């Protein structure tokens, strides 16, 4: 005979304000199997939980129902409490009379009736609850970091320092990411490469870190602690073990028609190239689309001049399949395309450039050796205009609704870098607002105005158009209330940041979600910013949302710590509410294997005794670690051979019967 305890929570006034909780407890006491029915203001509090635990012990309860908030909030709390006093945690049932009742209804009489019905259904289900024992999963002590920018490098260093093996996989020929392209970083004006390259070298020399550049993730399967990832290592056409990094091949390559991605298209690169001098690994790559040998069969100069015999035109893509315990996604961001912002003349006039192109112009290692020269005629500009919020804070279909976060700071940085090198250049900045929330950020931007005399104009620009050698910038000073015109030599646009174009595709491979702007979604924006809804997969850096370098590094270390927590465990406890096959009833149609969205069901052959003879029978088999308990198979199964532990067909029907009382 069941001994069921019902605990009705007031949740302060959240439930008790609409539902008559005392009435619910009174009615619950009359339900079949219920030996105790009580109510309390805050069941989740320490007093509430002690009430719960003592009642189980004193009244020898063998099933409990907690009528309170959503199980997403406190199912785990009450399960733990039950376990601590010797009751199997899966004998605890939650009736949601808050999110499903008090929070969505206004009529007190009807809400109370509904709450009673919900409790009746929970009691009926609890009566049929079985003790379930959670299984254990082993953990592969290896981490995969997707993306080799500063976020990926930092995460990898932290996990590797903790003693675990880490693989970094990077799409481009070198790690480093956007930070390698930047000249100086705000607010300290540190040289970006000077602070990044030591970390890049640390990563390459670390005994626990393996770097796979010019590689992409092809397929991911498995589950937390046991991911199986197929990595496609694209053919560099250079044998990494033999290459000495001397660079003679690059010098002699005759093909110079391709725009350099690293230099944002401002100059061209060779067909065989390393993206930048401090590249890690310092081994070049042949761009087969640009290479004369691959396109026409003629040339091969690089091979002839290579003293290490490292060029291999026959090299093929290789696939590596590796098991990982955790995966960290740190794929970064890009700048938006400007084809819908024709009013700024980007693409029409070479002197209208993006902020990232400007970084390359001021960078001493860039296409102009750090001299600020107009792309059109290579002369020094006299007037430079910066336009902020190009594509950001835009509700129309042209732009992004969000603020890109980094532009106010980097524009102030750009303005000051110009004024420091060339005090006679006139610098104007058009802005809507100035957003400088970080440590020493506001002081940084004010220095541009107060010390360097940069002209900040509160207003937007309507149109930029060429007039002879100059660019006319047609804007407005909203504070004075006048439209203004500046004859600029160089216009720099602070373009909105966007998520990488292939983020959605990667998300699908990993089964993690992206938001409407294609940034990866975190499990909880406030309390779980580096985790995703898929256990074992974490996020770091700008792929989760626009952010600057200090935040990226902080988030990278946070993701590393979450990964280390998981990797440090000897085993993981899995969810026991999984499907189970009754092999006697299973007819071997294998429809369930087709319908399972997690590919958790496979088949096996068993031997049974039939009419005195041993025969072989095909039946389904559930992988308990992969099964997420969705129940799709139980619906599909014709003989009802497959059922869900904790949510069996009988239990669901008992709930329906109770509701239709």
């Amino acid at each position, binding site marked *: 005979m069941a001994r069921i305890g019902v605990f009705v929570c007031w949740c302060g006034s959240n439930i008790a304000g609409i539902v008559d909780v005392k009435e619910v407890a009174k009615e619950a006491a009359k339900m079949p199997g219920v030996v105790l029915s009580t109510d309390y203001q805050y069941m989740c509090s320490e007093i509430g939980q002690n009430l719960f635990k003592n009642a189980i012990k004193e009244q020898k309860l063998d099933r409990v129902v907690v009528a309170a908030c959503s199980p997403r909030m406190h199912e785990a709390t009450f399960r733990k409490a039950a376990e601590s006093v010797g009751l199997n945690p899966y004998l605890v049932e939650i009736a949601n009379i808050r999110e499903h009742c008090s929070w969505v209804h206004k009529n007190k009489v009807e809400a109370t009736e509904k709450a009673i019905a919900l409790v009746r259904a929970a009691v009926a289900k609890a009566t049929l609850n079985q003790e379930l024992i959670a299984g254990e999963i082993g953990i592969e002590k290896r981490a995969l970091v997707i993306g080799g920018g500063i976020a990926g490098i930092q995460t990898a260093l932290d996990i590797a320092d903790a003693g675990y093996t880490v693989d970094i996989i990077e799409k481009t020929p070198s790690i480093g990411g956007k930070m390698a392209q930047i000249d100086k970083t705000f607010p300290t004006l540190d040289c970006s490469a000077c602070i990044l390259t030591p970390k890049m070298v640390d990563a390459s020399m670390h005994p626990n870190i393996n770097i796979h550049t010019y590689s992409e993730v092809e397929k991911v399967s498995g589950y937390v602690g046991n991911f199986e990832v197929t990595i496609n290592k694209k053919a560099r056409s250079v044998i990494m073990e033999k290459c000495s990094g001397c660079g003679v091949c690059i010098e002699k390559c005759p093909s110079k028609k391709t725009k350099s991605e690293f230099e944002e298209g401002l100059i061209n690169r060779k067909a065989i190239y390393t993206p930048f001098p401090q590249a890690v690994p310092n081994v070049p790559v042949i761009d087969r689309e640009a290479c004369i040998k691959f396109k026409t069969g003629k040339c091969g100069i690089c091979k002839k001049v290579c003293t290490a015999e490292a060029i291999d035109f026959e090299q093929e893509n290789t696939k590596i399949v590796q098991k990982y315990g955790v995966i960290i996604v740190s794929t970064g961001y890009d700048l938006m395309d400007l084809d819908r912002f024709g*009013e700024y003349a980007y693409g029409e006039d070479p002197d209208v450039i993006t902020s990232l192109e400007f970084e390359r112009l001021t960078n001493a290692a860039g296409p102009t050796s750090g001299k600020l020269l107009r792309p059109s005629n290579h002369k020094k500009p006299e007037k430079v205009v910066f336009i902020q*919020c190009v594509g950001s*804070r*835009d*509700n*129309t279909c042209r*732009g992004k609704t969000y603020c890109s976060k980094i532009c106010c700071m980097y524009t102030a940085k750009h303005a000051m870098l110009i004024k420091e090198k060339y005090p006679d250049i006139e610098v104007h900045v058009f802005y*809507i*607002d100035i957003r400088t929330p970080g440590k020493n950020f506001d002081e940084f931007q004010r220095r541009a105005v107060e010390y360097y005399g940069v002209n900040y104009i*509160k*207003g*937007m*620009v*309507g*149109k930029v158009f060429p007039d002879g050698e100059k660019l006319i910038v*047609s*804007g*407005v*000073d*909203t504070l004075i*209330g*006048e*439209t203004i015109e500046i004859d600029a030599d160089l216009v720099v646009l602070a373009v909105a940041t966007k998520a990488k174009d292939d983020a959605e595709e990667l998300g699908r491979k990993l089964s993690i979600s992206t938001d409407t702007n294609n940034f990866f979604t975190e499990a909880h924006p406030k309390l779980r910013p580096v985790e995703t809804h898929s256990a074992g997969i974490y996020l770091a850096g700008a792929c989760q949302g626009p952010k600057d370098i200090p935040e990226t590094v902080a988030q990278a270390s946070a993701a590393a710590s979450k990964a280390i927590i998981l990797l440090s465990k000897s085993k993981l406890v899995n969810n026991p509410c999984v499907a189970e096959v009754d092999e006697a009833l299973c007819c071997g149609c294998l429809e369930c294997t087709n319908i399972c969205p997690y590919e958790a069901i496979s088949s096996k052959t068993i031997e049974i005794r039939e009419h005195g003879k041993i025969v072989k029978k095909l039946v389904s088999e559930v992988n308990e670690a992969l099964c997420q308990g969705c129940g799709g198979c139980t619906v599909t199964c014709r003989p009802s051979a497959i059922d869900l532990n904790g949510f069996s067909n009988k239990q669901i029907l008992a709930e329906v019967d109770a509701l239709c009382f």
Partner: protein
Amino acid sequence: MIRVKMSTNNRKKEIDRVLGISGENIKLCMQCGKCSASCPSSSNMDILPHQIIRLFQVGNYEKVLNSQTIWNCASCFTCGSRCPRNIDITKLMEAVRVTVVRNKGESRINIKELPEKINDKMPHQVIVSAFRKYNK
């Protein structure tokens, strides 16, 4: 310059009526000034388009009605096409004009004065659209 007492109830009924006719939500405006920067008629305006929106936001309908701006607007739609908040300022200007000229005696063009104003070079379209804009 006297200190104006803040009151958002100034002529609220009239403002709500004009906003209702235009169908635009002026609370969306963040005063970026892109409309004013883009407006080709701005040089003839005493109050810039973004300031007209601000006057609406604070309820100062008096200044809007007394401006030359609402009559100088050429309805070219450049402002609305570039506004990052998707506010169609042209519709708002037209809504103000319409509520003014559709009152008795408020037409801006007297047909008797017209023959001396037009010449051979003027396309008929000008006459039609002028009547649409300035008369009820």
